[in-house]
């Protein structure tokens, strides 16, 4: 299969990058240019990724692993090489430790599910620690696990400026703690959490550390070995890849020791009607036909991001976030939920605007072509923590420009006047 053309940019040229994204040419509502500020929800896809996706289906489509024919070998090769790309993208020691799931949520459910039984299964008295700033997908799986096993769910609170309240870390994470699962970069507050510090405490008591990196892997260079964690979950559609694919990375010894999740084709070693034995990693956790074309396209997304350079992507994210924070904090009656300084912070800014409801803010912005998200962004507890039911969120990515931020600020002004 031909290599996807990779964009390489000496200096970061956002206008040039934007040309890679066909959708950024869209006009909405009365021919207004699209201002897409909802990338924390899902990112847009560059032509380089879409081309690989189409080429796969038009030239190489086949099921994998099972086929002894040319297409089968090409498809298997493309799928497995995507796994290798992902592994090296996040610094995983081995591609076998990368499990393709359908999204981040499934990856988090996978790890929570396999901790429900077997030797390492949780029991009454055991504790799971999460935080108040988690996405619902890193709350509900652990609630279900605790319900099913009788374990207890505990959580870190959040300070008024949107940081984890770590003052009680030594009592919260204690000898009963079996799992500590938390978000790397919050999709609501933007907060970047101190992974090493929490992981160290968790490991000191023998707990497994799970990191929800759904927002961080798209934005920052992430090295799972450097972070010192055990399991990481992230998702293709937020990192220029297709929908329908997510990833779990886990340390080999851990994944090998845990029981299977879904059963079926490809995850077995041998099947009799009475009992089955299971395949080694990564197949053990990939039952049925995987998202083959999605993995191949995701590999192209990884190539695309690598071509730009994750350092450059992160630098752009920092700059645009700093620009947005300073512009937004000037807007009268605007209150940012989360850190207002661009330090240890990702590119999602949630805010309230006086008494104008976020739905109404977003609707007015949409009327001017500006796409933001309104609601609780799958983080109801953290909104409650800040005394609101919902907020408006603007979020950025490698193609976001400062003039789009200016348009947002102007739009907010219109919203306030409309409802004022």
């Amino acid at each position, binding site marked *: 299969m031909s290599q996807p053309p990779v964009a390489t940019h000496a200096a970061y040229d956002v206008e040039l990058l934007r040309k890679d994204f066909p959708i950024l040419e869209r006009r909405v509502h*009365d021919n207004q240019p699209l201002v897409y500020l909802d990338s924390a929800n899902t990112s847009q896809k560059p032509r380089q990724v879409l081309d690989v996706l189409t080429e796969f289906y038009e030239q190489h489509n086949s099921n994998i692993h099972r086929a002894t024919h040319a297409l089968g070998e090409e498809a298997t090769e493309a799928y497995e090489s995507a796994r290798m790309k992902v592994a090296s993208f996040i610094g995983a020691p081995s591609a076998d430790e990368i499990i393709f799931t359908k999204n981040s949520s499934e990856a988090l459910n996978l790890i929570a599910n396999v901790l429900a039984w077997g030797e390492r299964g949780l029991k009454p008295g055991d504790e799971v620690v999460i935080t108040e700033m988690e996405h619902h997908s890193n709350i509900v799986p652990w609630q279900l696990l605790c319900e099913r096993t009788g374990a207890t769910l505990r959580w870190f609170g959040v300070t008024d400026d949107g940081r984890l309240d770590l003052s009680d870390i030594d009592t919260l994470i204690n000898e009963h703690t079996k799992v500590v699962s938390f978000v790397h970069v919050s999709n609501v507050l933007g907060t970047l959490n101190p992974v090493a510090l929490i992981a160290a405490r968790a490991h000191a008591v023998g707990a497994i550390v799970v990191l929800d990196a759904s927002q961080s892997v798209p934005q920052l260079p992430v090295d799972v070995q450097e972070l010192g964690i055990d399991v990481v979950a992230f998702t293709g559609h937020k990192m220029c890849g297709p929908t329908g694919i997510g990833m779990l990375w886990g340390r080999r010894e851990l994944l090998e020791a845990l029981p299977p999740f879904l059963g079926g084709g490809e995850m077995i070693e041998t099947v009799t009607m009475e009992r089955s034995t299971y395949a080694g990693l990564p197949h053990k956790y990939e039952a049925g036909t995987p998202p083959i074309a999605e993995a191949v396209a995701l590999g192209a997304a990884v190539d695309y991001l690598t071509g730009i350079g994750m350092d450059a992507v992160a630098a752009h994210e920092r700059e645009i976030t700093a620009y947005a924070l300073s512009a937004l904090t000037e807007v009268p009656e605007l209150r940012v939920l989360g850190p207002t300084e661009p330090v240890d912070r990702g590119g999602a800014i949630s805010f309230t605007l006086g008494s104008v409801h*976020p*739905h*109404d803010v977003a609707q007015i912005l949409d009327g001017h072509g500006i796409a933001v998200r309104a609601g609780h962004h799958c983080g109801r507890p953290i909104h409650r923590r800040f005394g609101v*039911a919902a907020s408006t969120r603007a979020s950025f990515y490698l193609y976001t420009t400062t003039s789009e931020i200016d348009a947002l600020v102007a739009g907010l002004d219109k919203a306030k006047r*409309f409802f004022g």
Partner: protein
Amino acid sequence: MQLESMYQEIILDHYRTPHHKGLREPFDVEVHHVNPTCGDEITLRVKLDGSTVSDVSYDSLGCSISQASASVLTDLVIGRDIDAGLTAHREFVALMQSRGEAVPDEEILEDAVAFAGVSKYPARVKCALLSWMAWKDATAQAQEHSTMSEGDNDDRDS
């Protein structure tokens, strides 16, 4: 600008000065409904008097559309026959699901006709329907209670 097709003056008026807002006694049933996507919530109470809706009171958290819709709803049903209210409910739900296609019946819907434009925005239809769904639920429960001749309040979370 097409935003005006959603934000009709009538809607903005109801939003700015909502009618019948606040929780009142006495009531037969209180319900609490939630819009899972955005977290908007309404607590709504219904008092029936035979076949008449004698009061509807509510407390809600939500956008202009959901606030105005609750206000319009109470205007339409308080003091009216339950059946007339249910007819309005049916009309309103049909209007909201029409994707801008239906011609609303002003006889039945009164101020609620202003929501026709909202039906073009599927994401906002849920906002407009929140209070209506709560009212229907509460009314059905109240009717059930009264046929069972029970007077206890049921705080159902549905």
